[in-house]
């Protein structure tokens, strides 16, 4: 258990175990953060971030914030990050972001500011006289959760209540924002059919994806008679993501090979036939 070691660590150093843990996990956290920033796809970013958050949860625990560590995992990594993933899914993840900058000089300036800011922040921390480490041992003596609870419900009770109100408001707000009031009657199937006919674009239902049993999957477009892929057969989302597996080339290749083979086979057969015929005729 880590707690006893923490209780002892009123000094300015930590236990070796914690040091080892820190150095390993810190690298992971930074990598995760970088991943969140640099990954082209939002899903990947979210996953990297989740990793970082889990690492942070461990650090919370290491710092004696047991309750927070658990909350971090449950609420943050569990709930919030999942929310992110849902939204990524909802929004459709229009492929990967292009990382090309569009605002002139933005990246340079951002880099400069961030670099300067980081350096200054570090300098500030190194400047601060943080010699005395009290450790949370005593504060946690009655149990971390109990300690927090007694603070939250006494000293921070107003803040707590207000935060509660905030949460409710946020929930309501989210609903209001995302809810779409349907203001007109939904079109019936007949009406939609009629409209389709009127517009004359695509009267029939969209063609199904995938032909040939081998590739009967949603991400594979159906092939037109000439062997080219038809965009209509796959979902636009997949198309937008570039996740369409265009097998037309392969299929055509296969077809060609098949035809070759069959023709070869037929050729032989035919010559045999011819022979037979000739023979027969010659007979």
């Amino acid at each position: 258990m880590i707690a006893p070691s923490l209780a002892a660590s009123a000094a300015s150093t930590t236990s070796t175990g914690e040091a080892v843990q820190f150095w390993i996990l810190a690298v992971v956290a930074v990598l995760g953060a970088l991943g969140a920033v640099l990954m082209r796809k939002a899903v990947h970013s979210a996953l990297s971030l989740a990793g970082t958050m889990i690492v942070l949860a461990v650090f919370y625990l290491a710092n004696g914030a047991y309750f927070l560590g658990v909350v971090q995992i449950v609420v943050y990594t569990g709930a919030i990050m999942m929310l992110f993933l849902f939204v990524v899914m909802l929004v459709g993840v229009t492929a990967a972001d292009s990382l090309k900058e569009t605002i002139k000089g933005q990246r340079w300036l951002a880099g400069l500011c961030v670099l300067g800011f980081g350096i200054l922040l570090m300098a500030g921390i190194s400047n601060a006289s943080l010699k005395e480490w009290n450790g949370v041992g005593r504060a946690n003596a009655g149990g971390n959760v109990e300690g927090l609870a007694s603070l939250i419900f006494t000293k921070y009770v107003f803040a707590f209540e207000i935060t509660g109100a905030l949460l409710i408001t946020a929930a309501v707000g989210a609903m209001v924002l995302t809810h779409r009031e349907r203001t007109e009657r939904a079109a019936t199937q007949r009406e939609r059919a009629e409209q389709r006919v009127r517009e004359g674009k695509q009267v029939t239902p969209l063609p199904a994806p995938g032909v040939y049993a081998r590739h009967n999957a949603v991400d594979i477009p159906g092939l037109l008679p000439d062997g080219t892929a038809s965009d209509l057969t796959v979902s636009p989302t997949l198309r937008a993501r570039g996740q369409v597996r265009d097998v037309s080339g392969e299929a055509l290749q296969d077809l060609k090979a098949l035809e070759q083979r069959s023709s070869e086979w037929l050729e032989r057969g035919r010559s045999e036939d011819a022979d037979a015929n000739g023979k027969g005729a010659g007979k």
Partner: protein
Amino acid sequence: MENLIGLLVLAPLLGAGVLLCGGRRLDRSGPWLGTLLAAVSFALGVVLFADMLGKGGEERALDVTVFQWVPVGGFRADVGFHLDQLSMTFVLLITGVGSLIHLYSVGYMAHDERKRRFFGYLNLFLAAMLLLVLADNYLLLYVGWEGVGLASYLLIGFWQHKPSAATAAKKAFLVNRVGDMGLSIAIMLLFTTFGTFAFDPVLTRATDAGEGKLTAVALMLLLAACGKSAQVPLQSWLGDAMEGPTPVSALIHAATMVTAGVYLITRSGAVFDAAPDAQTAVVTVGAVTLLFGAIVGCAKDDIKKALAGSTMSQIGYMILAAGLGPIGYVFAIMHLVTHGFFKAGLFLGAGSVMHGMNDEVDMRRYGGLRTYMPVTFVTFGLGYLAIIGFPGLSGFFSKDKIIEAAFAKGGTEGWILGGAALLGAAITAYYMTRVMLLTFFGEKRWQPDAEGEMPHPHESPRTMTVPMIVLAFGSVFAGGLFSINDTFLKWLEPVTGHEEGHSPVSALTVTAATMVVLVIGVAIAWAQYGRRPVPVTAPRGSLLTRAARRDLLQDDFNHVVLVRGGEHLTRSLVYVDHSLVDGVVNGTAASVGGLSGRMRKLQNGYARSYAVSMFGGAAVLIAATLLMRAV
């Protein structure tokens, strides 16, 4: 008695107020009301004069302070009057001649629909002129000084639908303002020097101040006098001022207002006496102007402008005399008074002639009028004899004395001044004879007027002839009356002081010389205009004649240097104001606009871009915090 002085000024002022604000209902009675108030003023003047005669020489001066005008700190200006023999002389001249000319105007302006206004202005002039001569301090004098300027402006431009009249009025006011500037600077100098500008303390203590200061004051006063009395170099307005109705020319631009400069110099005698350099300047101005005016007078064909040149020249005599110091003050004033009579008479005569000749002013289109307008002819003739100094008439006495005094100045200066004065007398005889001959003698050279109507000369109505006759009496007898027993000298001496000059030539010689040049002048004029027929259109003439017709190119000089230069200056300043002063401001605005246009590009609408600046700001804040901690 003291209260009467105030009334003296108030009467015409009241007239002006009533006439100008009274509206249409006074249109008919207005002229008579104005005349009446002028006469009331004259009557009051006479009462005061009688009162003054009853007192001894030294006690004659009356001082009355009406109210404190501008009491500010150490600066005290009062509305107060000072009536002594000098002002009395002026009061009588102004109100007397003024009343006569009011009367004359009743006839002269009978057909003008705006005559109510005309009489209002005339009354305003009288009030201002009286204020000028009665003021007991320079600031109040200045009020009168500008007041007469205003009246002169209004009256010259009375027929303001004529652009030439409006321009002449403006010119007169502006040139006068230059002179006024001199007067106001003089007052400021007096204030800084003496701490006051009332006549009494300043003049009695004048010698306490340094000569330099006094010279400056005197020169500034001279500038003022030049402006008001149309002396070189500020004489250019007087000729144009003849655009005004003739009674105005007679009253303001001959008899009274233009002599205000002489009054100013005489009044400030103590200052001038203590500043000999300034006196030299005064006599120079006087001598130059008397010749200048005379020469201009010779060349003009416009009867009023010829008389205006003559006025300028005669005032030159007065200024010359005043510049001579105590030798000349009395004679300057004496000439001023006699000149007031005969020149007013001459102008009224000229007005009468014009009245009869459909407002024609070109003497070359007159001729032979003596039989048609006998009264005018006689009175004009007497005025003519007086001005050329015909023995026994007014001008003879006053002008002769001035010439004597000029010689009496002594030294080279005396000879030069005396010579100039003599030469002036000769030229006076010449041009006045010319006027006389061209107008009343010779054959008729009448021309149809603008509407093609031939003039039918006739004698003017009684209201016009009576003043002319009265003034003719003055022209004939005033000089003689003044000179008997040196009455005038004794009358004024307590105020102006007097000393006998030591002339290098005897008085008799001077008189004889004057007679000789007079005869020469008349003879030449007769030779030119009496014996030969006069062409209706002026011949081209010699260079001098042509220059003299254009006021010896003074106007051209003004036009080129002042008017053109001023126009260029203002135009370039308008440009500077618009493009430089405003340009700097508008430029700043434009550059701020340009800068914000560029800055606007930073606001590109991308949230990420804003985030960067936010973040950068945060970084800067942290840096600042760290730096502050480090420091």
